[in-house]
């Protein structure tokens, strides 16, 4: 089927099977390898993307569900030549180790901070509990999110 959606701010038309998994469409057809597949069953969050700004698991979505949607992948997050505040906080606070969970984690954080601009540590931990990380023990991720939230709030204020 012919599919029309916004992908990282650009109007995108693809011809694909309606039942193609979105993670395959992104990775194999569109070359967007930032969405990682790790469990294929909606349990780990590594394939997280934003659909109309809300975090979704691309391994559990079918291509047809993207019709008319605004899709953001990790590749569409950073401003030209720089990083989003959340990405920068992940770098600065050592929240990245093997990095396989990182794209999904960053997108989940962006969604979380949009819904809750001033989360407590506990709210961050709850908000990210659908994204598994095997390397960090999560502490530096939580610290990065707190720092990003403080920066964002400073800007708004």
């Amino acid at each position: 089927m012919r599919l029309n959606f916004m992908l990282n701010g650009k109007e995108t038309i693809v011809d694909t099977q309606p039942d193609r998994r979105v993670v395959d469409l992104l990775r194999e057809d569109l070359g967007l390898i930032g969405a990682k597949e790790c469990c294929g069953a909606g349990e780990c969050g590594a394939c997280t993307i934003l659909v109309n700004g809300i975090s979704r698991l691309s391994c559990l979505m079918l291509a047809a569900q993207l019709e008319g949607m605004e899709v953001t992948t990790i590749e569409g997050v950073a401003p030209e030549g720089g990083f989003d505040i959340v990405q920068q906080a992940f770098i600065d606070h050592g929240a990245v180790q093997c990095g396989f969970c990182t794209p999904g984690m960053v997108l989940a954080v962006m969604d979380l901070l949009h819904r809750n601009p001033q989360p407590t540590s506990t709210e961050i931990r709850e908000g990210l509990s659908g994204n598994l990380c095997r390397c960090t023990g999560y502490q530096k991720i939580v610290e990065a999110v707190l720092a990003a939230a403080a920066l964002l709030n400073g800007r708004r204020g």
Partner: protein
Amino acid sequence: MPTWAESKIMHHNSRLITSEPLVIGRSAPRVDALTKVAGEEKYATDYYPENYLWAGIKRAAYPHARIKSLDISQAKNMAGVISVLTSQDVLGSNRLGIFEKDQPILADGIVRHYGEAVALVTAETKEILEQALAAIMVKYEPLAAVFDPEEAVAKDAVVLYPGRADGNVLLRGEISCGRGAEALVDCAFTAEVSIALNWQDHAFLETEAGVAWLEEDGTIAMIASTQTPFRDRLELAEALKIPPNKFRVRVPYLGGAFGGKDGITVQGFLALAAQHSGGRAVKMWYSREERFLAGTKRHPAVMKYTLGCDREGLLQALDCTILMDTGAYSALGGEVLELAMEHAGGPYCIPHTRIKGAVVYTNNPVASAFRGFGVPQVAAAIEQVVDELAKIVGFDSLTFRLKNAVRRGSVTPAGVLLTQTVGMGECLSKVQEHRLWRERQSWQKSAPPFKRRGVGLAACYHAVGFGPVIPDYANAKLELTTDGRILVSVGVVDMGQGNASTYMQIVGHILFQGYDNMELVLPNTSRTLPSASSSASRTTFTYGKALTEAANILKERILARALLLFSFQLLEQLSVQDLVLLPGRILHQPSGREVPLKMIAGFMDHSERIATYSYTCPVNKQVLPTGKNLRHHGYPHRVFSYGVQLVRLQVDTLTGEVEVCDLLNCIDAGCVLNPQVFEQQIQGGAAQGIGYALFEDFALQEGKIRTNDFSTYILPTAMDIPNMETVVVSLAEDDGPYGMKGAGEISIDGVLPAIANGIAAIIGTRITRGTLTGEKILLTLRQAGKEAVR
């Protein structure tokens, strides 16, 4: 098809990266974080070469069976199937393994564990691949099987390898010191524990993956997620009968490994498939379920310990047995047993010991290396029996450990003389002064209703490197490029721990450069030099030492050539002491003149611009009268890291659920090169220890894994891991670069026993079998009449 020249070179696009010169000892953000956080970093999973094929495996449906027939005709004739390969197509020994070569790439006659590879298919699409795998008809004659390691050593046990002299025993050893177990009778106090530990899956997020293709000259080129590219070639060469130099292996950053990619995973299949794909690239990527089925695990262990001390509380004697299950194939089973036995008595002075160990074959999944490498298992046993004995003698658990801790010059319970730095006493003292320890009683008393609180701790040590026989080597290579940049060629894999970034930090420190003037070449058998595996808490310890020397050589050459240049400019005899390397340039201090590195590079021959250094770690030369057959497997080691871990726990008396409220890591891993990366290692290892202790309740039924996804095999989430504190004891270790010791494993070793000791203190009973789940705790509380106690 990816061209070989696209080898990973660090690039930063247009994003700003610090030009500040890097310094040892100061936190620097990891350079790989930039590409990883942007989703740009290409892992082995992310290669989709032009016109590639998918490869996949037909797996055994029995834990032990004879293959009566294997009919591939239907699959072979399907449209879109390129090849269907069986053991008949493997021209070499068809045996993989490091010390004991016993594991076929594709089963040839007998399958020995559930999910063993039987046939290999390549196809145009994933869908066709699945259909072809389903169309392969295998008839099995099921054989009697053995799943319990204790049954496996019984006289009438089913034997996996009838030709072996010692039945199912892969390796058996005994270490005996002083008067051995006999000395227990003279002890004033003794304590016993019996512990059985579960399997653990590495659960790295990037499952096993790679691509490979056959080049025109017959070379098999491969991009794979492996910890061991150089060793893999040797292993593959023999199994497939292809000369080792006909493999080229390139290794991007790994999406986690933790020991689970120490050796061949998909590489044998990839090479074989590439040989039969007419030059087209083949791609493999395990599903999570396949990873659970086919990947290695942490060895389960059954341990019996008796520990004794004198009237003053000084440890005198230890008698212990360790039985490990390595599953159907040896992998690194013998080496894991050795390390377990060497660490079996913990970081204490115990003059009289008998440590008996065996690792055995069963028809279970294959166990091999996993962060800790046998030490988390024995730490679980010794640290619990030490707590029990402390209680009997009447000491608190910390004072008792401090009283018995090894110091520099002590001899370990395995008879190893500690000639290098020993921070055990310092770690314990720091914990003793820490508020989490000092305030433990008031904290325990302030538990809310239906909760019970407790504090547990454990002390551990962890050997660095491979021991006296297997060379712990590294070959560093640095280049000053013609445009004046520094190219750091890394021969040892970065599986996520950040060592590649640390290497840039070392080079930057010596050559006064920032990230912006350096580039990285990740492991590549045709561009970087051979180095041993990324493992054994030795990665930066060894490679860093080689790199330090290479950087010093390059520095000397750069300054010597600059001296000539300045001499011509200033028309006088100059001294090299007058020169200073600065970012991108060299300064002649007395005159204030500068020349760019690029200009110096132009005055150097290609051979001068490349500095290499080969380094092999010193080893322990001690001749031990005991455990002689363990020597090849690593006994004895020379350098050890040390750590104490303390947890504050809260048990819910209504549900049995345990909450880890606080975790303190006090670690002596020598001097710290990059505090941020060090903390990452310590926190990450501790988190895996929490998973091992409380959550990852691996379930096997007759060799079949019942927990094969993340809804049944539970990994800790952000809600399950507390904020941790890491306290550093930084003793300067001469063997390591800048005084460091390995930090990759020490933090996983003590977590399970610290939690187990905390739980025992709370519920008054020790849970000695398997994962410490809420169900078991609730049952124990119920039996003790403590369920739902307010």
